[in-house]
């Protein structure tokens, strides 16, 4: 008897509702994936404003859920379990989703699973590429996170191998976009500019790659400052800033460090599969370089399609389905959202 899992995501600026079907053989099928984004409301602030995001979640939640059920051709009464992002994320934003999830669980008399957003980014890949081999390595890159994770079991066993010590990769994109006069969020415009530029023009620093640096940690703060300094110096000399070349060179530095460390981690631990997910996974240079290096190292590369990589409810529903399938105990209806939920806590 297959089961329908409803997933609710509200950790940042996307209100996501996903529906998946957990089949008896453990396969997880995507039924609906509806997202309402408040990104445009944050653009003029140059970053996500938590209160603006929280207000938008409350407004969008039920209408987005309605759209999800409609597109899946399901009724609320078809739901067998509910999964919700319990953390990490913005406290007030998480609270909206968690509160709603508890109420849905109470109204529909089905179990609730408070789950980890980061694990969701990995679990979403099973919707496209099927079950994950054990172990596999995951590189999560987005505006909020930059992490290398070892996944022995998506429902129960995830360990951090490395993470950023300062900015997330996506944050560096936003800041560099601002330096270059490109719009927020910075990922897509930098990717477009970089396509017209030469990545070898400027040798920007590769953070955390010195002999004494932590092997699998990342740092993007120095890179962001180096780009700003380079641009300011060019302006001072009265030169026109070669935006495309700066974007390409910056993007090359980011993609180089991310893929080098991920491939090295996989090789050193004898792991044969790398999953890259999160909003920055859609970056064209990152995926191209990862493909090249994984191929050279004999590693299978899995990158979910862009729609699945960014924050959404389907990833939470998918993770919820794996947690249900693993027989993990359900969460109480008194759980708290945890803005700093550690990555090794897959469900509460």
């Amino acid at each position, binding site marked *: 008897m297959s089961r329908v899992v409803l997933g609710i995501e509200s950790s940042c600026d996307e209100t996501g509702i996903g529906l998946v079907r957990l089949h008896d053989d453990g396969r997880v099928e995507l039924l609906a994936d509806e997202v309402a984004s408040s990104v445009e409301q944050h653009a003029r602030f*140059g970053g996500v404003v938590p209160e603006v995001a929280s*207000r938008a979640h409350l407004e969008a939640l*039920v209408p987005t*859920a309605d759209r999800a059920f409609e597109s899946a051709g399901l009724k609320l009464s078809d739901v067998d379990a509910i999964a919700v992002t319990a953390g990490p994320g913005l406290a007030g934003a998480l*609270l909206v989703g968690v509160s709603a999830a508890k109420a849905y669980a109470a109204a529909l008399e089905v179990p609730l699973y408070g789950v980890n957003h980061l694990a969701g980014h990995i679990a979403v890949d099973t919707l496209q590429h099927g079950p994950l081999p054990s172990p596999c390595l995951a590189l999560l890159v987005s505006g909020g996170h930059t992490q290398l994770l070892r996944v022995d079991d998506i429902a129960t066993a995830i360990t951090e191998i490395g993470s950023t010590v300062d900015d997330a990769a996506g944050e560096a994109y936003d800041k560099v976009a601002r330096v270059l006069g490109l719009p927020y969020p910075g990922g897509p415009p930098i990717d477009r500019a970089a396509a017209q530029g030469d990545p070898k023009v400027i040798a920007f620093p590769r953070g955390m790659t010195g002999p004494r640096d932590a092997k699998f940690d990342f740092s993007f703060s120095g890179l962001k400052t180096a780009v700003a300094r380079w641009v*300011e110096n060019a302006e001072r000399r009265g030169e026109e800033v070669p935006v495309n070349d700066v974007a390409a060179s910056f993007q090359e530095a980011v993609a180089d460090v991310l893929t080098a460390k991920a491939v090295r981690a996989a090789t050193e631990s004898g792991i044969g599969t790398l999953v890259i997910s999160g909003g920055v996974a859609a970056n064209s240079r990152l995926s191209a370089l990862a493909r090249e290096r994984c191929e050279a190292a004999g590693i299978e590369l899995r990158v979910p399609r862009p729609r699945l990589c960014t924050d959404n409810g389907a990833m939470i529903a998918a993770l919820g389905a794996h947690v249900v399938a693993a027989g993990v105990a359900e969460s109480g*209806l*008194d759980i*708290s959202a945890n803005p700093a939920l550690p990555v090794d806590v897959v469900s509460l």
Partner: protein
Amino acid sequence: MLVLALDTSTPAVTAGVATLAGADVTVLAERVTVNPRAHGELITPHLLAAAREAEVALREVDAIVCGVGPGPFTGLRAGMATAAALGHGLGINVYPVCGLDAIAAQATPGEPFLVVTDARRREVYWAAYDEHGARVDGPHVQAPEPLGRPVAAGDGARQYAERLGVRVVEPYYPATAGLVTAAREALLAGEAPAPLTPLYLRRPDAVEPSARKRVTAP
């Protein structure tokens, strides 16, 4: 008519079950905890506990009444998200009620009065009511000062009695009876509820970035 009421617009986390027969509101069970940091944790357990005590299954409930503020944002949203999802999940209407009106519905000073609640940041939310409890002004948010009435209900009245220059009367928080009473007309008319929109009364704190700081000396 079986009604579920909830409110998280003040430090009180309130959920209850009541019947509405004609104009009579009878509270069957209620759970209240005063803890401004536990709205998200407690509201669903409270409403389930109240339903259990009232020996009512949620799917028997005919309508939901939800306090929509004014109130500090985060806690307020916990209750409103709960009510919205509950109404959606049960397929029943959710009727919004101004939390100050719910307090006013249970205050009986016999003269025109205020309802004042704590808005934090040394400000209060307030509204003015006539002697019959009908709102005539507000809701507003501002620093506590004399507001033209000598009597006030609500926890803000208690906290700032001196600066408001008021005699304080109960209740201090919205409760089930007041919430259902304040929604009574809409419930009895069986009309479609007004949209479930929070009364924030304040804009989000957000500043547009000024010119980017240079990293090199000019």
